[in-house]
């Protein structure tokens, strides 16, 4: 349990024993900050790592390896971390302390200027993948996991949480630690979230980034229960800016790389986290304010008298697709993640350019509870989803009933057509009676009450007739369902085409990778799948393929494939006309997941239940 933590229950799994603090050898100030943090967070003294490194902000890659990477690997091995594949990791969090370098020059490109500031790699970002071969801009497998999970032992096998506690002087770094502890102890945070969604729009990555911020604004911002202020899109595409900050607790924006400390007004609210996505927000965090009053964002966040507890920024140009995303960041914080987790979960790439500055163990408490769709403890469903699922169940029950009717009819007809007197003598009577008892009319009558009550339920709970509900939900009903409605049956445009079918896959990504996935579905008439009737592959055509981009909401799958961070969500295939099958017939169905190299991620999974064509 972290010390000084008076309010927040620990929902996450990051205990002080899992944190190491790296300080600079023979540097009394650096050690002082390490001790200050140890006292604040109760991390064990054994988790101090002394690094024989320079006090320069930027160092060569060679020096990085010899004075930072190797000493940390050695120390962590002593603390029980195994740096073999899938080795157990006792330590999950690495903090780089005061006066420890923040970046090294990338020497992977022999033709690049080794000391060009555009070639800086953030050491804290590299350390996310400590013990693994360096790979610039490596896809982060913990990024934006739609099925939220706290950082776990499983994650720790292949990734570390990292942060930097550094600044112009030790007094300011102590303030960073103090601010985090104060925020930890706030019953709930107050203030405003400032959002600047608009920046450049020249490239796909830039437009995607703007859209991702707007997605956060539309789908998450109001869940946090804080006031907010958005910049306004300009007509002439000039980058809009926040005029000034007052009562700000969060800032998340991009582009304009310099701002003035004077535009952050005095306030009583605690400043929690600031991020401006640009090339060099965190490139020079050892500096104090610029004399001309134009500073990188992280410098303002750190150095303000009433400054931010944490901030994030780039040490050099990362490309826009690597910028931190607000939605996974705030959703993770709202779930109760530490800010170190939230930063990791919102970073599309690691081994790259962006760092978190501040105490990674800080937790932020929001006044508003988690919305139902994010609360993993809530297992109830919305009324519309329940109506949809009941409709599907009734349609399936009807399809089996009418299947029985069809089969008994066929049996009876076969007896009649046999021309075998003995066969007819013994079978005609019972098969006729069997068919009579299972006729379509009988089957319809069995469901009459259920379907009538169901349509009344829809009206009483939604105020909509079944037809209006179907229109509103973009749904249809099966032919048999419509038959049972009798005089209340709906026009044919409300009824699924004969033979259409759909199949859903709940995909759990088994790899610790972030990649795109394709799905293959085979439908066969026999159990051995030697007589395949339908063979579909989402890498060849996305016709009919959808995935659950928001809970219970499906959207078209793209040709890129299914993003693995949507693991836990469903993929749905709705058969196009060419793949229609026979109504009430049963088929064997199986699926597999393949990667972009056409290798099986999950090999054929045969559904234990045959697919009935109910439409």
């Amino acid at each position, binding site marked *: 349990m972290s010390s000084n933590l008076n309010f927040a229950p620990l929902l996450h799994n990051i205990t002080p024993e899992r944190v190491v603090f790296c300080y600079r050898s023979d540097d009394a100030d650096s050690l002082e900050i390490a001790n200050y943090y140890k006292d604040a967070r109760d991390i064990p003294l054994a988790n101090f790592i002394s690094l024989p490194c320079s006090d320069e902000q930027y160092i060569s890659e060679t020096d990085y390896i010899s004075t930072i990477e190797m000493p940390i690997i050695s120390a962590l091995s002593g603390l029980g971390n195994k740096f073999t594949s899938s080795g157990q990791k006792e330590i999950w969090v690495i903090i780089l302390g005061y006066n420890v370098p923040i970046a090294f020059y990338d020497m992977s490109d022999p033709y690049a200027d080794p000391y060009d500031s555009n070639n800086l790699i953030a050491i804290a970002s590299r350390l996310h993948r400590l013990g693994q071969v360096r790979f610039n801009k490596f896809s982060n497998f913990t990024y934006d996991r739609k099925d939220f999970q706290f950082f776990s032992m499983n994650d720790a096998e292949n990734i570390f949480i990292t942060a930097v506690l550094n600044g112009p002087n030790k007094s300011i770094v102590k303030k960073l630690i103090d601010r985090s502890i104060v925020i930890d102890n706030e019953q709930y945070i107050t203030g405003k979230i400032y959002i600047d969604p608009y920046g450049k729009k020249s490239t796909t990555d830039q437009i995607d980034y703007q859209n991702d911020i707007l997605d956060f604004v539309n789908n998450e911002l109001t869940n946090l229960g804080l006031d907010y202020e958005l910049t306004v899109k300009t007509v002439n595409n000039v980058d809009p800016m926040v005029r000034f900050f007052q009562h700000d607790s969060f800032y998340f924006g991009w582009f304009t790389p310099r701002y003035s400390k004077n535009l952050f007004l005095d306030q009583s609210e605690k400043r929690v986290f600031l991020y401006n996505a640009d090339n060099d927000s965190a490139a020079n965090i050892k500096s104090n304010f610029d004399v001309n009053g134009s500073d990188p964002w992280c410098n303002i966040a750190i150095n303000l008298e009433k400054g931010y507890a944490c901030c994030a920024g780039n040490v050099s140009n990362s490309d826009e697709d690597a910028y931190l995303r607000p939605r996974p960041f705030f959703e993770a914080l709202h779930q109760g993640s530490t800010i170190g987790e939230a930063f990791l979960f919102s970073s599309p790439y690691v081994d790259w350019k962006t760092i978190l500055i501040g105490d990674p163990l800080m937790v932020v408490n929001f006044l508003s509870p988690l919305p*139902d769709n994010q609360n993993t403890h*809530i*297992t*109830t*469903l*919305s*009324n519309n989803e*329940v109506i949809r*699922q*009941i409709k599907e*169940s*009734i349609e*399936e*029950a*009807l399809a*089996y*009933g009418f*299947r*029985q009717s069809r*089969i*008994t009819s*066929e*049996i009876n007809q*076969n007896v009649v057509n*046999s*021309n*075998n*007197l*003995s*066969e007819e*003598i*013994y*079978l005609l*009577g*019972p*098969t006729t*009676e*069997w068919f*009579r*008892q*299972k006729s379509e009319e*009988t*089957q319809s009558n*069995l*469901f009459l*009450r*259920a379907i*009538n*009550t*169901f349509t*009344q*339920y829809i009206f*009483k*709970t939604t105020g909509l007739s079944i037809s209006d509900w179907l229109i509103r939900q973009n749904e249809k009903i099966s032919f048999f369902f419509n038959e049972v409605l009798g005089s209340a049956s709906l026009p044919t445009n409300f009824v699924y085409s004969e033979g259409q079918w759909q199949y859903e896959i709940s995909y759990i990504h088994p790899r610790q990778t972030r990649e795109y996935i394709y799905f293959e579905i085979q439908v066969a008439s026999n*159990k051995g799948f030697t007589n395949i009737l339908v063979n579909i592959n989402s890498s060849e055509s996305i016709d009919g393929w959808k995935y659950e981009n928001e809970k219970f909401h499906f959207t078209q799958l793209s040709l890129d494939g299914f993003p693995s961070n949507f693991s836990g969500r469903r993929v749905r295939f709705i058969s196009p006309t060419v793949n229609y099958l026979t109504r009430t017939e*049963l088929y064997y169905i199986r699926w597999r997941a393949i990667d972009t190299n056409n290798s099986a991620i999950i090999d054929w999974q045969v559904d234990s239940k045959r697919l*009935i064509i109910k439409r």
Partner: protein
Amino acid sequence: MVYSALISPSRFTYYANQFTEASRAGLESARSIFASIALVDNVNISTFGVLTDAVVAMNSLSVALRSSYEFIFTNQYSTQPMESTFLGLSNHILKMSNLSINEYVSNNDLKVSSTYAKLSRIYGNVIDNSNIDLDL
């Protein structure tokens, strides 16, 4: 032309499979409707505007689905015409070949489904395990 003869093994297999499928379809129908009953209890009632009306509607639906399930289940378990059909096939085989259904299946190296075997047992015609294919 009408004749009287023992049915061929392929025709027996057709009947055995279709009897099995018809019997299973009835049970699957009941199972599907049963699954919907639990769904009613899973509604997030906090989303309802007028809670009382909604809860009354939920209860009505729950009762209607349960009643339909019982109705369908009972209907599927009134196996009399189904048993008569199974018995009819056995009697035809016995009359034309003097073989029990188990002997007929064994002699022709056929297999029946476990569903078929269970229903045969109801009217006293036991089919050996070796003649049952659990995959059918």
